[in-house]
């Protein structure tokens, strides 16, 4: 088992590179924008509606009201088995605020934008996969954005080594798991969250690695959109 894991690391599953990732855009016919993002064996499907009609109390006079629904593969939303009671809500909040930071909501006041994220399979680095799917969903829907973002998960092994885009097992073994949402404009941190404890230097190391990985992901975004538009 251990050797298989090692091989996986060398083959692009870990270390300082990401697991192979791919995406598909516009695969759903009903939503205004949709995207599936697959990171290794973790995959998330995003469906986006909007700018649409807003329900009374949620209406904002100067902004589009963004709502994020994170639906786990099994069980009720916001009660994900692995995350505990508030885990779903906390992630929804993180994804929503990250999207709000890049979405130019002021261009569509008094409207609602709904982002539904359906987890298809979770084999580690779920949050970063959700963030990537959300960003591609926003792009597919053609909503006005100030910049792009991507999610990168980074695990610190017990021996202190860094591991990008860990699998569920690597996440469990890790001393700390950090997830960043990186902005495409200057590579700044839009969102950060951590499991486990680490030192400030380790945090900075992880951040630097995540920023390097983000550049790869943004290149991938550009390539996949080029492919989408080449058919047009």
């Amino acid at each position, binding site marked *: 088992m251990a050797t298989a894991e090692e091989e996986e690391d060398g083959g692009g599953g870990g270390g300082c590179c990401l697991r192979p990732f791919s995406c598909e855009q516009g695969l759903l016919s009903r939503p205004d924008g949709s995207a599936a993002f697959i990171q290794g064996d973790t995959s998330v499907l995003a469906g986006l509606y909007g700018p649409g009609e807003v329900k009374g109390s949620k209406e904002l006079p100067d902004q589009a009201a963004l709502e994020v629904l994170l639906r786990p593969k099994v069980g009720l939303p916001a009660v994900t088995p692995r995350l505990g009671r508030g885990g779903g809500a906390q992630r929804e909040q993180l994804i929503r605020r990250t999207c709000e930071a890049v979405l130019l909501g002021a*261009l569509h006041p008094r*409207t609602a934008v709904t982002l539904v994220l359906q987890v298809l399979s979770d084999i580690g680095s779920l949050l970063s996969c959700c963030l990537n799917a959300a960003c591609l969903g926003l792009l597919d829907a053609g909503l006005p954005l*100030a910049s792009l973002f991507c999610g990168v998960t980074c695990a610190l092994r017990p021996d202190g080594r860094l591991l990008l885009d860990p699998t569920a097992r690597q996440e469990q073994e890790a001393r700390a798991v950090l997830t960043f949402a990186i902005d495409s404009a200057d590579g700044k941190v839009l969102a950060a969250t951590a499991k486990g404890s680490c030192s400030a230097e380790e945090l900075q190391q992880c951040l630097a690695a995540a920023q390097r990985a983000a550049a790869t992901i943004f290149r991938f975004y550009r390539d996949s959109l080029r492919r989408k538009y080449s058919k047009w």
Partner: protein
Amino acid sequence: MAARGVPAEACVGQVVLPGDVLLLPAHPDEDAERLRLGASAAPRGRLLCGPGLRRSGAGLLVTKCGLLRHRQAGGGAAAGGAFWVDSQQKRYVPVKGDHVIGIVTAKAGDVFKVDVGGSEQASLSYLAFEGATKRNRPNVQVGDLIYGQFLVANKDMEPEMVCIDSSGRASGMGVIGQDGFLFKVSLGLIRKLLAPKCEIIQELSQLYPFELVLGMNGRIWVKAKTVQQTLIIVNILEACEYMTAEQRKQALAKLSGN
């Protein structure tokens, strides 16, 4: 990050992503939005910054994903040329002057409420039809299809439609007759179909006669002699979303052979 600050000219026809910064050619007074009356150069107008772009400093900031388009300096408002982003989108956002197909959802006093696929229903006054007066109300029922254009459309106000032009003529607008078939396509396809000398429309028109209404909100209404013929047109137009020009020609050749 690599694509920060690329010259706008180099990106025309390419895919641009939100956050990209496009640098404009160095015409310092373009930004000053003044006419330059140089002795040698032709009078330069202001540069028009179209959908999907915003000004940021001396350049343009892309806010939508799509293909960058450019139109050379012409007359009118876009005397300095225009840049915009052509993006594939499904959701319609009302724009002033757009011709759209709406569905009447309610009659509320003096106005009809029309669903145009945007975030809010548009209002349509019963006086905004050709020849309509306070006495002579147009015959519009809930559920009718309306082809009209936006008189008011901005983010802060309820959109307002009219079915007459500025001289009070219907010029093709109004209630769309009975029968026919309404369906939805992406906004990008509509723009392609509405482009002058669109190949698809020309090829289809050689098949057999039919009536066609294209709404900028992604709705298409078709009516041919028989239901079967109508559905053939619908299927071809829907498939145009995914077919290349080559594939389309083959499909049409097969049909006209029958």
